[in-house]
């Protein structure tokens, strides 16, 4: 007997979809499309690709909903499908090499200077600054090698834990931790460099 991990709302919607209800499917789409679309946008960098990822994800989900045994949360299952859709997109569109981030290099960078990273909690109400911060961090995430970008997006933006992230991507928890660690340090350096260039400093 598998312990059901889906919440009651999703569980009931899934039951209705299996009986052919398109309205129930639309409710599922409405619940998760924003998260899936934004994940696609982070991973692919373009709105058209993000929309394709969202379409492919929900279509695949609909096709395989009968085989979904609810042993994981619906959101996690959808993200697993979306992660594969992003991977396919990447293979099709362009070759984006999976550069390995060296820990030694990151360590050497790590202590050479003070890192000027704005503190979000002290700058929340300055709209211009917030939008500068947002575009800087977006661009920095975009520049991470794809494997690292995927782990960082799932862990630090979507809020999945290590175990869930490992399950979504299909890699070991240790690899999730390693990639996350390196991605965060790389991001810290890139963000700090850009803020220095732009003259935005932590308060």
């Amino acid at each position: 007997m598998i312990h059901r991990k889906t919440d009651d709302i999703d569980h009931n919607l899934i039951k209705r979809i299996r009986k052919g209800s398109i309205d129930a499917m639309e409710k599922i789409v409405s619940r998760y499309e924003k998260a899936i679309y934004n994940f696609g946008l982070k991973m692919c960098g373009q709105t058209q690709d993000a929309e394709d990822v969202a379409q492919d994800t929900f279509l695949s989900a609909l096709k395989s909903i009968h085989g979904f045994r609810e042993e994981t949360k619906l959101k996690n299952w959808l993200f697993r499908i979306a992660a594969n859709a992003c991977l396919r997109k990447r293979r099709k569109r362009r070759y984006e090499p999976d550069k390995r981030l060296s820990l030694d290099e990151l360590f050497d960078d790590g202590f050479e200077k003070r890192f000027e990273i704005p503190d979000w909690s002290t700058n929340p109400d300055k709209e211009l600054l917030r939008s500068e911060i947002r575009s800087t961090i977006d661009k920095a995430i975009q520049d991470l090698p794809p494997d690292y970008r995927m782990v960082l997006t799932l862990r630090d933006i979507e809020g999945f834990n290590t175990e869930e992230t490992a399950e979504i991507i299909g890699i070991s928890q240790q690899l999730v931790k390693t990639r996350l660690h390196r991605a965060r340090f790389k991001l810290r350096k890139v963000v700090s460099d850009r803020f220095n260039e732009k003259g935005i400093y932590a308060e």
Partner: protein
Amino acid sequence: MQNRCREYFEYVSEFIDGELNDSICKKIQKHLDECPECQECLDSLKRTINLCKNISKGPISHECHKRIMEKLREYLDA
């Protein structure tokens, strides 16, 4: 810089995420209390993570939602 800095550097993320056992946490905390460089490294990494956590997600357009639903209906009608 101390040798310990290199040793603990690899654990900083897991330390922030609370994924380490008590014994290693205590060792790292003790080192942080004595090493301002590592403390700054930890603080700036926390601020970086915090920026990621506060990224707002853009809305999905009504047209995009409609196109997703059209695709699903096409499949069901086929």
